[in-house]
């Protein structure tokens, strides 16, 4: 049976070296941060949304489900700026709320940029496995195996905590302690859930660490790798793909502007 987070087909982005891909995506983030034209941010958001649907390797409904949250991101990012931002050309005003033309477009600009960020991040996450990423980081970027394997071990432990949370909730319900609502219940939450779960997790982490050392894990020693992490043509392809997406966004913004406004930091 396929798990939810298991792509149904792979693309260049999946096959690219995760460490290099990480660098690429960090560069993308920085680039997106320095986009100040609303047309550019609009097309960037569109381009990466498209890329996400085409290249993530997941069926349409899964991608749609995951991106649904972006609507909220868009609204929350833009709304504050739209309602309370400064501007000369006031469209509507009520009490402390002033919607001006400038603030409205700035708000939209922020929203588009958040979507672009979100899509880039999701695209990276959906196309890389954590194991692959840590193996690549160890081999390409000299990440200490100590941290890499600790992270991988902790990822393995996470679902167990979820399972324990469920058991704890049931146990408390049986004892008649689960349903206490209101402020009192809220205050007791850390004591009732955090303490036992934390105690169990610490014990478990300690045992895992001991088991790792017994298997002669030694961060200082030379080691070989089960998953090699070569640089291949796929990396070049991934680079070209992402560069093409960005270039297309900028070209469209210049030649086919939707808003036609200037730099968002100045008066648009």
């Amino acid at each position, binding site marked *: 049976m396929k798990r939810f987070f298991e792509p149904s087909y792979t693309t260049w982005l999946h096959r690219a070296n995760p460490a290099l891909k990480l660098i690429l995506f960090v560069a993308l983030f920085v680039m997106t941060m320095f986009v100040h034209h609303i047309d550019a941010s609009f097309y960037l958001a569109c381009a990466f949304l498209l890329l996400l649907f085409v290249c993530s390797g997941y069926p349409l409904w899964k991608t749609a489900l995951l991106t649904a949250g972006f609507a909220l991101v868009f609204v929350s990012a833009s709304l504050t700026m739209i309602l309370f931002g400064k501007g000369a050309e006031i469209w509507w005003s009520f009490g402390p709320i002033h919607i001006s033309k400038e603030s409205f477009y700035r708000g939209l600009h922020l929203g588009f940029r958040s979507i672009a960020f979100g899509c880039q991040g999701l695209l990276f996450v959906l196309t890389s496995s954590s194991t692959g990423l840590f193996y690549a980081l160890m081999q390409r970027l000299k990440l200490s195996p100590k941290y890499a394997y600790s992270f991988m071990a902790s990822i393995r432990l996470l679902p167990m905590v979820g399972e324990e949370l469920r058991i704890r909730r049931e146990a408390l319900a049986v*004892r*008649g302690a689960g349903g206490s609502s209101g402020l009192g219940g809220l205050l007791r939450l850390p004591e009732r859930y955090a303490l036992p779960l934390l105690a169990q997790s610490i014990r478990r982490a300690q045992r895992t660490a*001991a088991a790792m050392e*017994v298997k002669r*894990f030694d961060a200082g020693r030379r080691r070989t790798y*089960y998953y090699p992490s070569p640089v291949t043509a796929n990396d070049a392809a991934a680079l070209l793909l992402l560069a093409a997406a960005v270039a297309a966004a900028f070209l469209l913004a210049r030649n086919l502007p939707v808003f036609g406004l200037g730099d968002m930091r100045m008066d648009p």
Partner: protein
Amino acid sequence: MKKAAMDIAIEIEPGLETKRGKEAGREAKTKAGEPHGAAPDADAQTQSGYPDGTTPAGTIDREAEGEARRQPPEAAASEEYAAEVRALRLKFPGTQQLLFRDLSLEIRRGEKVLLLGPSGCGKSTLLQVLGGVIPRVTEVPLKAERLTVPDSAGLVFQDPDTQFCMSYVDEELAFVLENLAVPRGEMDARIEAALREVGLDLPDRHMPIGDLSQGMKQRLALASVLLLEPDALLLDEPSALLDPEGRRTIWEAVRRVSARRTVIIVEHRIEEVLHWVDRIVLLRSDGSILADGAPAGLFGRYRAELREYGVWYPGAWDDAYGGAEAGAADLAAENARRGAPADGEAESPAGTQRPGGEANAPRMAARPAGRAAPGGGEARGEAPAAGAPLLRLRDFRVRRGGRTVCAAEAAEVLPGDLIALVGPNGAGKSSLLLGLMGLLAHEGVCEFGGIAPAGRRAARETAAKHAAFVFQNPEFQFVTNRALDEVAFTLRSEAERALRAGRRPLLGRRPKPDAAAESGMLRRSRGELARFGLAGFEDRHPYLLSLGQKRRLSVASAVVSDKPLLLLDEPTFGQDARNAFAILDLCERLRASGHAVLMVTHELEIADRLATQIWRIEGGRLVSAEHTGRSRSGGAFVSLVSKEGTE
């Protein structure tokens, strides 16, 4: 002798301090780039020898060994020993007592040794010392005149869930090979070979470890240490958390791979191990060696100690409950003498059929005095008429995530029943219990004492009123910071519920029981703690109790409110024999006093010896509910262990 020990402890103290200082220095050096733990033997040498170069007087007055079977250390050359400690002293930081005082032990190459002893005697620590984990990996102050450990040792621990750091079978095995810097090209063949060696035939090696059964996980752990190509295998209770099937397979695998290796085992459950070990080392609770020798002679001589230490030796059940036929009358007499509610007749094997209400009536009346305590609210008022079923299921189906996980067409629980709920892993046993408590959605009829609630909320409330539930991990059940409050919590919340039902609360004002009721509840809780052998631990944090005490506290807090039905999820799981028998005695006493006990268990002995009914669950269905020969009205059939007093 006691005084001598104290003197030594004092004398040794400065030495240990120096040791710790030295270690700190070494750690600093390690940080500066020196390879850590490069040579385990050299390390051990650094640890050994006293700082002032003298031998302490303590070695002279060492206790005479119980068995004189061991040769003098000088006689044997150290080469033939796989592991050897001489005059080992070890103390955990922050504790007063030395865990080991001048312990000496040699283990020859290829020997199969079983370490036995009471819990807390340091078996696991000794195993880790012999395996070179202490002090190489875990730094614990220790001294030894001589400490030789195997060049490479493979350790398997108790908990199947915490021995892996990767998510997939092949990745986990590859992790070991990576550590050994094995070239990538050789990895696949070696992984294949290791899996074959432990009998783990997987369709796909890239399989999530989470999908394996607990027994398979332990075999995977064994496979991963085999990749270290160890001279010695050290096993720290590898089967304690496994069901019988898992236990069988792991020991089979161990036997298969142990041919030319030294094997050192710490284990409570020894029936699978006993017939192939060469030697047993029996430790006392103070960490000294009580006996050391071949299994055959040792068992006859130290049966009492083994029983006291909670070892599951073969025949532990017979010793606790008497042999198949002999002990029963004996026990009944014993019970009568102790004033346990026994009405003269012991087992009446003919009583398979439903006992009449008359048979149960005196039993209900014979509840231990003092349990009719005040302030319990009216929840207990509706004890069902004797003989009427406490729980009746008709077409009962428990659902989880939209599908039926356990179905029961018809089943009944009567007062005086002790029902063993058996079946393979994942068959839906625990789900059935959760469904009964209303924690999982269910369909069909589930009547508690004749009341059939409608709706999930009502079902949950009715269930909570009639049945107490004990989860497998006692820690998950604790809600307070004191053992006494833990028991009182059940009473308090019940009293509150009763008050709340009486009048509508005004805007968050929680009705509180008055002072008299409160003191009554505390008195009752104290009584309950005493009944479960926990007197004196009232102020202890529940987490700081021992494993067996935690288990008893969780049962105490469940049964204090005197609900007619007690549900337990594997109460004896992972417990040593002593604790297990103590729990079973509690259940049996409850049963004899007119309650009903329903427990999920893998322990077939419970089903055979104690159960009045055996419910078998297979493939998500209650396939059979058969009556055993035990009568519901029989007196409490408690083990002999419990009369020796608890902890």
